[in-house]
């Protein structure tokens, strides 16, 4: 009887063979990736979005139907209340398009959580969403919004035609509601990510440029600018492959590996929840369907921060995206560039 050859599973997201194993790279620097605490529950309430950005790691778009049900939203809220989760970070898709979004925000605030919404700005112009600035203000929500560049050409190239103009108008409305004003408690933070296969600039330098350009060109103000590296997964990976940039981009990420970023990686203080309630170490693992390590609770219904506090983080080649240069997290750079 002929023994079958072992199947080598080279999935659609398999990295180029030249990319080293991430855990081995950490070990070579005397490091391993374990969580430190659970400070943030990051909840992806669905893949439905009014935009279809070219770099989106969620593959979100107006045609996606995956959306968190009210029942799962209640399970998230039960966890927030029971464990007094310090921060609830709500993302999507455009999270505002989930019918339970406002309930989730209001109840989490009532439970005492700091609530952060990853708001794409243009959703404010969708039917029934015009009052979002007022809702955010009333709830004391922190708003984090993507704006890849302070010029129309670059922004529209990534996020779609007309997005820049709408985004600027949305920023004006948020400013008018009190967001992003000096001395205001209403925080409006922007997210820069490269419009292509290259690393982001130094966060402090590009923040100064954004502040100057957005104020002088459009009269818009904001608090902080976070630089985020494009992760080589899903839609951005498709772009890398289509444009012949995958090998070069992965080499760039690996060569820019900076061990001092590891301590500040978001997976060390965050647990990610998908639209079905399943748990992950980060939003990128979520999109790759890499659940938390075996033996841990896998669902928000069974969530217990004590079990997650010192867990081993599940890694992959995409993790080189968070450790390149000054590092990358949902809160931007995590270390000084080497």
């Amino acid at each position, binding site marked *: 009887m002929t023994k079958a050859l072992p199947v080598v599973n080279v999935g659609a997201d398999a990295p180029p063979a030249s990319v080293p194993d991430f855990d081995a790279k950490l070990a070579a620097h005397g490091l391993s990736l374990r969580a430190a605490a659970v400070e943030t529950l990051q909840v992806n309430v669905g893949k439905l979005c009014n935009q279809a950005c070219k770099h989106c790691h969620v593959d979100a778009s107006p045609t996606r139907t995956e959306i968190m049900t009210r029942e799962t939203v209640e399970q998230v809220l039960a966890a927030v209340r029971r464990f007094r989760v310090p921060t609830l970070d709500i993302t999507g898709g455009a999270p505002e398009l989930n019918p339970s979004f406002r309930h989730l925000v209001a109840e989490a605030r009532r439970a005492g959580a700091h609530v952060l919404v990853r708001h794409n700005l243009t959703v404010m112009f969708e039917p029934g969403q015009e009052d979002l600035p007022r809702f955010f203000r009333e709830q004391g929500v922190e708003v984090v919004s993507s704006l890849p*560049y302070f*010029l129309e050409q*670059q922004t529209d190239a990534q996020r779609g035609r007309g997005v820049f103009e709408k985004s600027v108008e949305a920023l004006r409305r948020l400013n008018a509601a009190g967001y992003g004003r000096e001395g205001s408690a209403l925080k409006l933070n922007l997210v820069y990510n*490269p419009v*292509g296969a*290259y*690393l*982001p*600039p*130094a966060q402090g*330098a*590009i923040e100064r*440029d954004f502040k100057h350009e957005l104020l002088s060109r459009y009269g818009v103000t904001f608090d902080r600018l976070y630089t985020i590296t494009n992760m080589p997964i899903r839609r951005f990976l498709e772009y890398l492959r289509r444009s012949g940039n995958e090998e070069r981009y992965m*080499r760039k990420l690996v060569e820019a590996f900076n061990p001092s970023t590891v301590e500040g990686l978001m997976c060390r203080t965050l647990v990610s929840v998908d639209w079905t309630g399943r748990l992950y170490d980060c939003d990128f693992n979520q999109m790759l369907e890499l659940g938390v390590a075996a033996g841990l609770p896998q669902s928000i219904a069974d969530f217990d921060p004590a079990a997650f506090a010192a867990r081993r983080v599940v890694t992959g080649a995409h993790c080189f995206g968070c450790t390149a240069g000054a590092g990358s997290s949902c809160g931007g750079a995590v270390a000084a560039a080497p």
Partner: protein
Amino acid sequence: MAYYEEDDLGRFSEVGRHRPDLFEKFMAWYQACQEDGALTRREKALIGLAVAHALQCPYCIDAYSQSCLEAGSNMEQMTEAVHMASALRGGATLIHALQAHNSVGKVSM
């Protein structure tokens, strides 16, 4: 084989195979030049891009185009830098017309 191979840029360190001591000195100096100082990294990257064009070095143009993007520059700024290099090359050519004037003047009545 083409005279310029894109992948050779990533093989630059192989130049250090012979006289590594000299290559290491060069690299230390080269990298120190890139750091933020009286000029920002972005300004230095734009200068590098302009010089790369003046030298017409494809490796340098590739490297400094990427450096400019990663320093937050846009194509308008990068194009202005290249125009500066071009304008200087043009001006440097043109001012030599005075050499021709002088040369012609010496032998003319």
